[in-house]
């Protein structure tokens, strides 16, 4: 990779050992993925729950956090993805003291590095949506795909170590979705069905993600009969990224880089085209455990719920009582609004629990299952059902209304 004088100085250790490690890490990644140079970035978003970090990762952070102030602090705004717990509600999840201790240590280390503990995977809804053409170093696949596709920003998937590196150096290797050439569509999806429910948007994302197959594929969708809302885009994108490892999609006439389909289809290229209808969406949903008669727990999470989703959930729960655990997970930015607007009170009056600043699958999901006796789980998040199988759950993908009905019927489905 070509280095500027400033980058060469960082590599030589003139800005301290942490920035030297950071730029060496970025050069390794950039060399592997064919980056010619670096591109300055405006923000970094760091995924670093302690289930992923483990003790080793937290100790690694603590070593850097012990450096002198001038050597350890990030250079650009750096925010965090959800943590592994909501300290105020950890007892309801039966999380163990060691989990909370590890979280506290990770938080202290990040704060010492100058990272803003935003603890959210919906920063594009609540912190600062990126601008078209703005280069970012975002982690959390749902954040990246929304920023790239809906906002027209430019980011690759940046895992925690790389997002932290970008925060320390103020730049990231220029490869993948920072480059015009990679932002063109690689296949077209012709839709005969426009979803209505969030779980259907997620399932559609899952279907397209399975078609895509790998990170370097960019689907362009045509045939939607209306413009999706921000929450619908959120569920679609999160599932597409989860099932397919996809970081960018276009919707012709809707997303900013595809005013016309021709804008994202290379000239003279006949791209593969796939037709997708309602039957495909239902087939994906049916793959999950629809044959089970009841669930043990209902979870709304992944991504964290927006204020409008929280309001919709409260309305569905009004006058009813959940008789199995029901968790609604939102961001620390949305939670105070829910408190002020009485939404938290309404959900909790119906027997639900509002969790803030965490995400269910990033919170020791396997240990939660064992401690609480949970196996069968209902959710309206396609991303969550895609992840939780590996953690030992039997997840069911239902609408928000169906999930609430199950929670209020002792977990029985189809009531």
């Amino acid at each position: 990779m070509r280095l500027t004088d400033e980058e060469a100085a960082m590599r030589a250790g003139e800005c301290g050992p942490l920035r030297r490690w950071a730029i060496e890490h970025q050069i390794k990644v950039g060399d592997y993925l064919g980056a010619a140079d670096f591109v300055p970035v405006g923000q970094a978003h760091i995924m670093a729950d302690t289930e992923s970090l483990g003790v080793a990762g937290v100790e690694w952070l603590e070593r850097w956090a012990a450096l002198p102030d001038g050597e350890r602090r990030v250079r650009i705004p750096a925010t965090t993805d959800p943590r592994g717990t909501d300290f105020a509600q950890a007892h309801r999840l039966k999380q163990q003291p060691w989990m909370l201790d590890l979280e506290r240590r990770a938080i202290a280390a990040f704060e010492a590095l100058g990272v803003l503990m935003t603890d959210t995977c919906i920063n594009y809804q609540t912190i600062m949506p990126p601008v078209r053409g703005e280069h970012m170093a975002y982690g959390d696949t749902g954040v990246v795909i929304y920023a790239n596709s809906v906002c027209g920003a430019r980011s690759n998937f940046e895992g925690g170590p790389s997002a932290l590196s970008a925060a320390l150096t103020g730049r990231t290797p220029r490869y993948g979705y920072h480059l015009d050439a990679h932002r063109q569509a690689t296949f077209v999806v012709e839709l005969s069905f426009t979803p209505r429910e969030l779980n259907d948007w997620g399932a559609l994302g899952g279907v397209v993600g399975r078609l895509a197959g790998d990170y370097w594929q960019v689907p362009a969708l045509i045939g939607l009969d209306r413009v999706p809302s921000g929450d619908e885009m959120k569920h679609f994108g999160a599932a597409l990224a989860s099932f397919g490892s996809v970081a960018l999609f276009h919707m012709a006439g809707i997303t900013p880089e595809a005013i016309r389909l021709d804008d994202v289809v290379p000239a003279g290229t006949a791209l593969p085209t796939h037709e997708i209808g309602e039957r495909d969406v239902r087939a994906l949903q049916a793959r999950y455990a629809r044959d089970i008669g009841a669930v043990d727990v209902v979870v709304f999470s992944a991504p964290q719920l927006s204020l409008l989703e929280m309001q919709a959930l409260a309305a569905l729960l009004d006058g009813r009582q959940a008789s199995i655990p029901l968790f609604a997970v939102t961001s620390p930015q949305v939670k105070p609004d829910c408190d002020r607007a009485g939404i938290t009170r309404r959900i909790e009056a119906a027997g639900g629990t509002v969790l803030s600043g965490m995400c269910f699958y990033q919170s020791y999901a396997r240990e939660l299952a064992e401690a609480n006796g949970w196996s069968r789980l209902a959710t309206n998040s396609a991303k969550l059902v895609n992840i939780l199988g590996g953690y030992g759950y039997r997840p069911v993908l239902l609408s928000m209304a169906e999930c609430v009905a199950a929670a209020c019927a002792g977990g029985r489905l189809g009531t």
Partner: protein
Amino acid sequence: MSAKIFYAAAGMGGKVRARALVASDGFSARYDLDRIRGIFSRPEHKLAGQSYRGRVLVLDVAKGGVATAWMLYEMSSRDVMPAALVLNCVNPIMVQGAALADFSMISGFDVDITQAIPNGAEVEVDPAAERPFVRIV
């Protein structure tokens, strides 16, 4: 000999030799593994129930989210870790994770590498060679 050596487009980490665990399926540490027990835990995965510890994993594509970037380092710290990853196609997360963990990985072949290497074969992976390769020994 030439029929049993497969060159990759890119590589990272040191040379390793171990038995291959092969499947035409993807890889994500978060989605697919029970990292405590060191087995594939995702029921739909073609290697479900099998131990990956000390094996050269030969798989199709890097899948899933960003957590693998931390998880490879954590797995390495406990030595409940594959010996190397050999993939047809990587995503940035797998590269970032391998870079942090100093883990051996190669990717990008002229053939479908999951069809070229038999499950259980003894293989050598050399990411640091001038042309990174995996070789059946």
